[in-house]
């Protein structure tokens, strides 16, 4: 009855309908959330709580683990290296991915299909397989080294270096940059470029004044995904890098697997999450401001 009255009473918004819905109906709707809710609780919230629990209680209750972490110069170097690696990977993905996504949008249907496939095939291939392929490519007497020797550049150490790690991670994460950017670019109205040229702007000006600003939300989305994935990347740095230039994920692994220091591992997890959230918050502010002016793109 309440529903009928609400219908008669005046303008209906989604809120009023839900508010006035019979209790059984409301529970029915909430029931649809149960599977996702369970997954979220079991898969994310419980492990997160356990991690926090260990960080503050193992081996003894208090801030001991954090004191150790913040006092350890080695750990801070590793944290810094993790972030610079993530930044480098993101920048490389940006430099390679932006022109690639642009080519996908600009290409005809046939070429676009080929380009899309070239992004997706590695995406579908096992991470381990790809990383081992990079081990072979980057190794000291591998194809890349012999190519460098042939062109006269001599030996540039790649395997077991941070450079090798960055190369491998960039290749693994490139699709995560290209695909969201491509999605944004396909939604840019190309007539805007025609309009720009009719108004007297050459192709380069049109690109920088119209296309680039309108594609920035895609750049933001791709960069975020790549950057955050890079921070916690384990397999590729473990196989392509060395203990001497390890990243935070390898440290966590060592603490748990080698030293049974669950508390310290948990602490690193917490540090990583807090810093990541802080960066996300800053970027959300910046991107939120720039996209709010771009909404309404047809």
């Amino acid at each position: 009855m309440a529903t009928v009255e609400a219908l008669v009473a005046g303008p209906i918004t989604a809120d009023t309908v839900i508010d006035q819905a019979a209790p059984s109906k409301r529970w029915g709707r909430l029931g649809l959330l149960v599977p996702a809710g369970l997954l979220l609780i079991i898969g994310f919230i419980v492990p997160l709580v356990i991690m926090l629990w260990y960080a503050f209680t193992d081996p003894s209750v208090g801030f001991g683990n954090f004191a150790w972490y913040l006092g350890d110069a080695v750990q801070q170097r590793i944290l810094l290296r993790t972030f610079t690696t993530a930044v480098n990977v993101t920048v490389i993905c940006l430099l390679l991915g932006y022109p690639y996504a642009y080519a996908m949008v600009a290409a005809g249907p046939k070429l676009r299909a080929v380009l899309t496939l070239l992004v997706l095939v590695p995406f579908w291939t096992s991470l381990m397989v790809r990383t081992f392929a990079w081990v072979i490519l980057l190794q000291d007497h591998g194809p890349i080294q012999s190519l460098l020797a042939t062109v006269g550049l001599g030996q540039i150490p790649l395997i077991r270096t941070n450079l090798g790690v960055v190369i491998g991670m960039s290749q693994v994460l490139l699709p995560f940059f290209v695909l969201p950017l491509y999605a944004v670019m396909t939604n840019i109205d190309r007539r805007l470029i025609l309009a720009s040229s009719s108004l007297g702007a050459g192709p380069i000006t049109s690109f920088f004044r119209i296309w680039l600003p309108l594609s920035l939300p895609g750049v933001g989305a791709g960069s975020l995904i790549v950057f955050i994935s890079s921070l916690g990347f384990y397999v590729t740095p473990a196989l392509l890098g060395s203990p001497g230039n390890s990243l935070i994920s390898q440290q966590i692994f060592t603490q748990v697997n080698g030293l049974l220091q669950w508390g310290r591992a948990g602490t690193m997890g917490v540090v990583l999450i807090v810093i990541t959230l802080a960066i996300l918050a800053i970027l959300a502010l910046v991107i939120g401001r720039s996209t709010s002016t771009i909404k309404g793109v047809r």
Partner: protein
Amino acid sequence: MSDSSISQGAAITLNKLTKRYGDATAVDAIDLNAEPGEFLTLLGPSGSGKTTTLNMIAGFVDVTEGEILVDGKPVYALPPHKRNMGMVFQHYALFPHMSVGDNVAYPLRQRRLPKSERGRLVADALNKVGLANLSHRMPRQLSGGQQQRVALARAIVYSPRVLLMDEPLGALDKKLRDSLQLEIKRIHAELGTTFVYVTHDQDEALVLSDRIAVFNQGKIEQVGSAQDLYERPSTIFVAQFVGESSLFHGLAVDHGAGKGVLSSDRTLHAHRGDARTGAPAALVVRPERIRVQSIDGTAPSGNAVRGRILQEIYLGNSRKLEVELGDGSKVLVRESAGDVTANRPGDLVWLTFRAEDAVVLTSNESPDRPQAADDHVPVFASH
């Protein structure tokens, strides 16, 4: 450049202009010219080549053959951004990340005008389109009509000598379209710029244009003033696309000083016509020029055809009758509100008209080539 010289429109000449996509010919060797300051409309159904022609003038589409001259100079080598033409698109194409003011200032920035002058010109242009106070809004905060006004301001702010418009009112509702039509007409008169305007809406073309070029299947059927096209259509397609027409089919015959159409049961006379004698032809009369007369009493003299009224459409200021002739074809008659006769659907009537109101035109309706023109205009297109 002084103000008087830039406000002067440019002359545009199209010589045997052709665009082919593979085997398909979109624009077929058209010749057309626009006088400086003229309002020229390219009118035609979709796929008739009018938009392709406009895009070739703008430089967005490459020319296959022929040439485009602006003030006698070929523009073939110039990319769109160097042609210095204004363009207004159907879907506005405002830059969504720039304010209204920045959108309008965009072409001025490309021309490196000093900031103070930019501000003055932007205010001027927004004033002309009646949006003086909206400079700081973002495009998405505006209605469709306002967005199109901004697009118009942006296209005229740098005083281009040619303004191209591609169905600019196509996305707007009827009321708004009518008021913007008048505004476009006013702005054209103020600027003295040459306007080339594409539309499929014949009413819009009649309201706005100095001259109209009627496009059909990549060719121009006729170029002329609204009055020329309506009163002296040179093809059946034009007669049917611009306004409504009633067609009486038959074979062309010579008749004194004029022409006539002969069919099995009657010969009809027209003072004008270019159909070749003996060829399939149609005598074309505007529905409001036809009188309906009851079948009782004596047969009228002059042009008279028997028919049966199928239905009546009441339009307020007039009524339209659909009348079926003896050969099964249907024609329209329009009676204005003051002259409505007593004839009702089902009545047998005489249709009469004067020879000076009729024209005999070559019919492309022959057994091996089905009539296409009828498909474009619904018989009862309402206004």
